């Protein structure tokens, strides 16, 4: 079997599995800090109850993120040695800074955040929460910087086929980096808001009306309702940035085969790469020109300008539509829920039923968005510098097939176990309500003596 395609599937599977967990931990860290600060300000133990329920989810997600992240750091070498050989001088320092400034910070203070509530002062515990949340976000900053550099590389020169850095500032803050970072951070915020709202809705459906459930539910719903319009705007800006720097990706996202003015917006279609046309099109006249150029006669780049040098159209086109569709659904659900919570102080049962599966909508949108941008970068690994096909390692296809099969089984089982535990934790919290004992909080609300 072809090691290239197997290695690509394996890396895709790995990184897809991995991103699910940072997408949760990045924003959940800040959400926990919010619970903690509310508790510090009000002394209301319901906030601490919400904290302890969700800190368990954080711990589990963090562990899943660590192990799948370790896997990826090895896979650069096992499957893609050409990557580091060509752009190692640039990717290396960015990855090194991620590990040094962010990863250690999160990992070291996670222990205190998880298990230290009764061992350190409340102030130190809050500080540990800040450092863990800051660490996950800083981690995202470095990884996004590297990923964006692979999309829109600048600040380097090629010597003997190897990239050498010339301007680190330009490398880190490369053209697509700010857009991608904001888009991803907001995506994480939405993923967590919907997860919290969805699992709280599950508790609600099981008859839980405890104060900690309401607090978590409101926090999740209102955060989602605030973030989703910002995300739609940020996504649009990111799209315009992509149009400027990677027009072939936009052409594939819009399934626009020919450059020209008055390009319609293709809502749905089956792009046919062999015939270089769309089957079963549903379009809005001049739509793409209006969205991308703000004028009906605006010229939109088409795939004909990039023959042999553009990404596969079908997956990019559909991944983009799944992301946008999920985003629209998020807008509708979160605004409806916010309306009922704000005006009626209740949650209609059908809406709660919809919110439960929507707990995973953030995952779906995040994955679809990443597929759009990463498949959209093909055939390049680093745009204009290194092709994916030139980076693959000399490992036998049979070995990659073996590892891929086992990874897939392992990831599927772990995902089932993870979701099972989330539901179990939510139902357990629903059963306990406001009655579960909180020894550390109730004994000494604001100052925990260090245990010997």
């Amino acid at each position, binding site marked *: 079997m072809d090691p290239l395609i197997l290695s690509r599937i394996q890396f895709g599977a790995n990184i897809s599995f991995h991103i699910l967990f940072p997408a949760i931990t990045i924003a959940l860290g800040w959400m926990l800090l919010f619970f903690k600060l509310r508790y510090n300000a009000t002394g209301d133990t319901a906030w601490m109850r919400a904290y302890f329920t969700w800190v368990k989810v954080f711990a589990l997600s963090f562990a899943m993120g660590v192990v799948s992240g*370790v896997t990826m*750091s090895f896979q650069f070498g096992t499957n893609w040695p050409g990557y580091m*050989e060509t752009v190692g001088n640039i990717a290396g*320092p960015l990855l090194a800074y991620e590990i040094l400034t962010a990863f250690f910070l999160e*990992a070291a203070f996670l222990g205190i955040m998880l298990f230290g509530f009764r061992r350190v002062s409340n102030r130190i515990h809050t500080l540990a929460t800040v450092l863990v949340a800051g660490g996950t976000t800083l981690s995202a900053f470095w990884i996004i910087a590297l990923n964006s550099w692979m999309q829109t590389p600048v600040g380097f020169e090629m010597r003997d086929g190897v990239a050498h850095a010339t301007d680190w500032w330009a490398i880190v803050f490369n053209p697509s980096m700010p857009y991608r970072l904001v888009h991803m951070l907001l995506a994480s915020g939405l993923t967590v808001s919907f997860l919290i709202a969805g699992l709280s809705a599950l508790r609600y459906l099981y008859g839980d009306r405890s104060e900690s459930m309401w607090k978590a539910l409101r926090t999740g719903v209102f955060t989602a309702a605030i973030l989703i319009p910002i995300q739609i705007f940020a996504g649009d800006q990111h799209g315009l940035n992509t149009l400027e720097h990677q027009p072939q990706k936009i052409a594939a996202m819009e399934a626009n085969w020919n450059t020209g003015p008055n390009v319609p917006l293709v809502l749905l279609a089956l792009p046919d790469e062999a015939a270089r046309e769309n089957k079963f099109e549903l379009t809005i006249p001049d739509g793409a020109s209006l969205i991308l150029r703000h004028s009906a006669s605006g010229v939109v780049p088409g795939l004909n300008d990039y023959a042999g040098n553009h990404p596969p159209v079908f997956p990019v086109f559909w991944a983009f539509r799944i992301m946008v569709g999920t985003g629209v659904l998020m807008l509708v659900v979160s605004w409806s829920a916010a309306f009922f919570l704000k005006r009626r102080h209740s949650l209609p049962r059908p809406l709660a039923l919809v919110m439960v599966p929507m707990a995973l909508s953030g995952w779906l949108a995040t994955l679809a968005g990443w597929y759009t941008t990463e498949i959209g970068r093909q055939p390049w690994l680093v745009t204009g510098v290194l092709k994916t096909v030139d980076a693959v390692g000399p490992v036998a296809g049979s070995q990659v097939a073996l590892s891929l099969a086992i*990874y897939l089984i392992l990831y599927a089982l772990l995902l089932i176990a993870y979701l099972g535990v989330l539901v179990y934790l939510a139902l357990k919290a629903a059963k306990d309500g406001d009655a579960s004992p909180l020894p550390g909080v109730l004994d000494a609300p604001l100052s925990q003596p260090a245990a010997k």
Partner: protein
Amino acid sequence: MTLDWPTLLPLIFAGLMGLAILIYVILDGFDLGIGILFAVAEDGEQDTMIAAIGPFWDANETWLVLAVGLLLVAFPLAHGTILTALYIPVFLLLVGLILRGVAFDFRAKVPAGRKHRWNRIFFLGSVIASLAQGYMLGIYVLGLDVGHGGMAFGALVALCLAAAYAAMGAAWVIYKTEGELQKKAVLWLRRALVLTALGMVAVSLATPLASPRIFDKWFVWPAMLYLSPLPVLSAVLFAWLWRQTFHLPKPNDRHALTPFLTLAAIFTLGFAGLAWSFYPFVVPDRLTIWQAASAPESLAIILAGTVVVLPIIIFYSFYAYRVFGGKATDLTYD
């Protein structure tokens, strides 16, 4: 050899990488070892053993990420060569690390009836990860030779390293627990020490036979003289620790940390010996650290950050260990 930056930087990074690997082996060594010891521990004891490592393991594993990261960023050519040659053992290591890492968290969160399953997965993952690391070390020592002899040697090192990790785990349990479990851990330590010693003798005898290059580096006058403290001191520490296991635990729990520190010292000595065997190669007999290194300007920018950040990391790691110092109590989130 002139001492300019292009010469110094790869040397510094080889040192940093070595340091990261050594810290990883010592720190993750004890928590992998505790996973291995799950095979002989009872239910209640397993909970205490997990509590003894719970707050630390994330940070411990981070040192592996740093070590691989440094290999990746400082010696990209070596990273590719080593990891493609070790494809299957690396894969097994990762599966082991994944299994034990998640089992750690799952066992504490699933319904009580499912806990046993995750305990077994924790044990299995720890064993797989330890064996894979040992096997990789063995193959690496032989210059990435994967013939039958190489595989046999790799298997030998794998067993030896797993025994050594079990000894580390037992030493950590002695430090972090009291009563019956502590006494039991002393017995575990004694047995693991015997196995480790047997393994180390076998590996030491096999290495010169398997690799003439390493033999030549050790058995020439006067290098032999300078190097002699390494094996002699290791043997003395070993024997002393073994004797200690007949007197532990002591009244008032004195010297509870001594076994762990002694083992850490033995690991450090063994590691220094390995480093001497390889220098100046990063891929044995193929690539020196200078041939495999990244561009000096890239190394310089990483070094600038490392010099500032590494002391901070070590400082707050100490702090985290101190917060959870003393005997392990039940871990609770609240």
